[in-house]
């Protein structure tokens, strides 16, 4: 599992490779917070290379979305595979996040 940070204009993209679970959620949180401290307000999490997410991973996304919103920014998600889409639907988090089917679509939406 690893997280890669990329920039596209004023959007920070975080690629999640492997799992986003209880064992690595704090690492993702820390990376996003570091980006916020540099002034970033638009964050896109790209799940193209993600295998699965557990409840702790979902929790950290909810927490970050709230934090970024309070700072006047926005957290958006892209590239959920069918399993991840089901996970977001089961938990109704698909109603909380703006989710795009591709990175390009997500970038256009900011």
């Amino acid at each position, binding site marked *: *599992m690893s997280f890669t940070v990329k920039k596209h204009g004023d959007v920070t993209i975080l690629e999640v490779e492997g*799992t986003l*679970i*209880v*064992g690595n959620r704090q690492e993702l949180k820390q990376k996003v917070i570091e980006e916020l401290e540099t002034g970033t307000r638009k964050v896109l999490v790209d799940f193209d290379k993600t*295998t*699965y*997410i*557990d*409840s*702790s991973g*979902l*929790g*950290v996304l*909810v*927490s970050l979305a*709230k934090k970024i919103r309070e700072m006047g920014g926005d957290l958006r998600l892209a590239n959920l595979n*069918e*399993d991840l889409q*089901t*996970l977001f639907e*089961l*938990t*109704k*988090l698909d*109603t*909380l996040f703006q989710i795009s089917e591709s990175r390009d679509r997500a970038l256009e939406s900011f």
Partner: protein
Amino acid sequence: MGHTAARLELEIPSEIEQIEGVVLQVIRRCEEAAFSARHLSFTVPVALTEALSNAILRGNGEDASKSVRIRVLVDAQLLVLEVEDDGTGFDLDACTSDPTTPGNLEREDGRGLFLMRRLMDRVEQFRGSGNVVRLTLRHRSSDGRAA
């Protein structure tokens, strides 16, 4: 593996870094039993991760001197996973909240038991030598079709 049941027993220290290794070993057994792609990539990994995470963090308070015991049974139709910790146990129904209600949607926690119960066919909690959570998934119907 035909109709022979496969068993696996593991014991790990209460460290969250252990979770992925356990999940991989269980998924390997499930692959041998020709589980569906969705069960291999989603249903089983997520539900088992939740059970292990609960046992390590809540049951054993992440005390690495305490162990978590995992017992796996895979047969032609069923997967039975038992995760045992040294905690005092909990009331499954009382501890399962609905994270999809408007008041709970933005909570950071409270989705673990909910997901286990939505993804598995049965979730039970009982006392063994420790506190046991048993997850049961029917992966094939009696006529051999993937469930």
